[in-house]
């Protein structure tokens, strides 16, 4: 079994395309359902966020599966294959492990270190495991990724303080308004992103935060959290007149604010600058509103321009986080190899146990004279002897330096102890028998 990843992300695709391949539009469960019946793959997890749509699978033949997944992705989203293909990337084996670990720890995010992705990876895995599309390999991969994500966050400053998109937005707000202390904020939508951005604006000591959402109770809940006040959805146009900064992050599928609305508001507010942070995906504000004088409209993609600044600030932490990820990838690979040598180890142990039993059986007549106590001691001594003999080979096999060595060790052990053929019952002269070399190498992954 091979690990395989196919996806698009902000590194490879513009926001327009990412909107179209967002799995949450048709539902991750539907996607998992369709994936699970495809014969080319064994396990699957679908990770979908504003910035990425990725399929993590295990398969026997990566080349064929990549082709199959590309077809699946194109059909599922109804995006022509030729249009999608240039934006797709694939990873196999250890690269998948590294990629997921980097994603989970926020290293691959649009703004490095942003914490939401961690929850999104968790959700993706939870959904897949509810749908029973994960198996031993992806289970281990994702649980390891959670460990890595947590450790990176705890041990580096990568996730500290400012939150990515919100942070980028605040830098911009300061470039437009200077101090934010006398500014009024309007938050449209009450989701997680809206909350994060509002929290950051609150920390800038803005004058007021108004929250509106189609669901009144959610608006109230968020308003309470960020020390703001909730307003009804119908008040939105009126709020547009007073706000200096508007954050939109609704889950709406079509823009909730069009150009005309913004235009009218700008006239009424006599062109007082309005900074719109549209972090919804799909976008909440008609991009055409950006043409209006004194309207500064930034969507998630635009905030990318500020990423470099953040990257520089976090470069120290990044290299530390990257090396943590590398260590974790290494130990995951070791686990994989150990897992690969498990059949060999089991066979080796069985071989020794069989030998011990057969010897005991052979000596049965002589041992019969012993007391039950002495008899059991003999049994124990032989068992301990076998165990001790096996300790070092077991360790060596489990912790073989790299994949090739692991495979070589397994093969050597198989050959030396004749593990490939069944133990020849009572006879002890199996070593003389020249066995053909095993047809397949001991698989590295199960």
């Amino acid at each position, binding site marked *: 079994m091979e690990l395989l990843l196919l996806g698009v992300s902000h590194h490879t695709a513009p926001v327009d395309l990412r909107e179209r391949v967002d799995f949450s539009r048709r539902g991750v469960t539907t996607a998992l359902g369709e994936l699970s019946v495809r014969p080319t793959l064994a396990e699957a997890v679908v990770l979908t966020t504003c910035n990425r749509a990725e399929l993590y699978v295990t398969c026997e033949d990566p080349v064929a599966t990549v082709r199959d997944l590309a077809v699946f992705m194109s059909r599922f989203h109804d995006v022509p294959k030729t249009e999608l293909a240039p934006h797709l990337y694939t990873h196999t084996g250890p690269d998948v492990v590294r990629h997921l670990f980097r994603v989970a720890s926020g290293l691959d995010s649009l703004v490095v270190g942003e914490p939401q992705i961690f929850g999104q990876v968790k959700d993706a895995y939870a959904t897949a495991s509810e749908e029973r599309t994960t198996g031993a390999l992806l289970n281990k991969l994702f649980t390891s990724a959670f460990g890595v994500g947590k450790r990176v966050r705890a041990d580096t400053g990568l996730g500290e303080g400012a939150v990515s998109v919100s942070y980028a937005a605040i830098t911009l707000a300061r*470039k437009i308004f200077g101090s934010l202390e006398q500014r009024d904020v309007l938050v449209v939508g009450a989701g997680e992103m809206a909350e994060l951005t509002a929290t950051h604006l609150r920390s800038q000591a803005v004058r007021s935060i108004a929250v509106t959402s189609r669901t009144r109770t959610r608006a109230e809940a968020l308003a309470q959290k960020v020390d703001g006040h909730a307003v009804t959805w119908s008040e939105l146009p009126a709020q547009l007149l007073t706000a200096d900064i508007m954050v939109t992050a609704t889950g709406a599928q079509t823009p909730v604010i069009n150009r005309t609305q913004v235009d009218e508001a700008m006239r009424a507010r*006599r*062109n007082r600058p309005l900074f719109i942070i549209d972090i919804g995906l799909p976008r909440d504000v008609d991009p055409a509103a950006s043409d209006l004088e004194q309207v500064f409209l930034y969507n998630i993609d635009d905030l990318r321009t500020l990423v470099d600044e953040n990257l520089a600030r976090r470069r120290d932490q990044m290299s530390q986080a990257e090396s943590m990820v590398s260590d974790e990838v290494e130990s995951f690979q070791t686990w994989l190899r150990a897992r690969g040598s498990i059949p060999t180890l089991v066979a080796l142990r069985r071989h020794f146990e069989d030998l011990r039993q057969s010897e005991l059986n052979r000596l049965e007549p002589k041992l019969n004279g012993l007391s039950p106590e002495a008899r059991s001691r003999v049994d124990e001594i032989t068992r301990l002897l076998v165990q001790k003999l096996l300790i070092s080979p077991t360790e060596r096999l489990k912790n073989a330096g790299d994949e090739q060595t692991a495979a070589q060790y397994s093969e050597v052990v198989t050959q030396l102890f004749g593990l490939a053929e069944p133990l020849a019952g009572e006879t002890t002269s199996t070593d003389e028998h020249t066995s053909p070399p095993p047809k397949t190498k001991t698989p590295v992954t199960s």
Partner: protein
Amino acid sequence: MTILLLSLYVAAGVTYGMHFARRDAGAGRLASATLAAAALMHTFVIGMRTVEVGHLPFVGAPAAISAFVWLLAVAYLYTEVTTDERAMGVFIVPLLVILQTVSTLSDRVIEPPPVLDSPWFAVHVSSLLFAYAAFALACVIGITYVLLFRELKSKQLGFFAARLPSLQVLDTMNGRAVGVGWLFLTAGLAVGGVWLFQLQPETADPRVAAMTLLDPKISVVLLSWTVYSFELYARRVIGWSGRRAAWLSALGFSIVLLNLVPVGYFLTKSHNF
């Protein structure tokens, strides 16, 4: 002496350029120090000239321009100290260098004609020069506003975003500079008008006779007054702040410059002292 002064301005221009390009605090301090030295020396030169000729050296376009350069340098240094913002220097100092060069090349000592022997003269000229200095600042602030505005609008933050203060600060500074400039311009023009009203019946000087609304020096300055008045009106009443106001202050100052050099040197029949 004047050549040394000019080279000090040139040196200040170069150091401001270096500071702007590298964003190096040391280069910034060096730039401010060089410009302060130039302004100090300029003060000394003007003081010497005053002692030498017995009145403020405002007579004739070259002297007036030089006085304007000095005022602008001092006004700029003042804003630099109060706002702790050096980014504008790279735009202001080249202007100082160009104007000071023009002034130095055409410099000559002029015996003031008897008409100018009046207390109104110093008030008239100095308030207008002060207004022009304020307009120069407003213009430069406006230009930087537009540069930063473009970066923020095009969503490609870079060179200027990293160096300039926020749009709001630039806009406010522009508004204030134009406001102060407009007050001095209005006062200077009013003083000139009153003075002319007193002079005209009793003087035979043909230049005084030429002081009508048709003289380019006077019509152009009134044009600039209209532009600045409109900017202030538009800011308060129509809500034209930001980029439009910035363009207006740039337009206004280009008219002021036009009046200061080509009109002041070649076209005017009334102010050619």
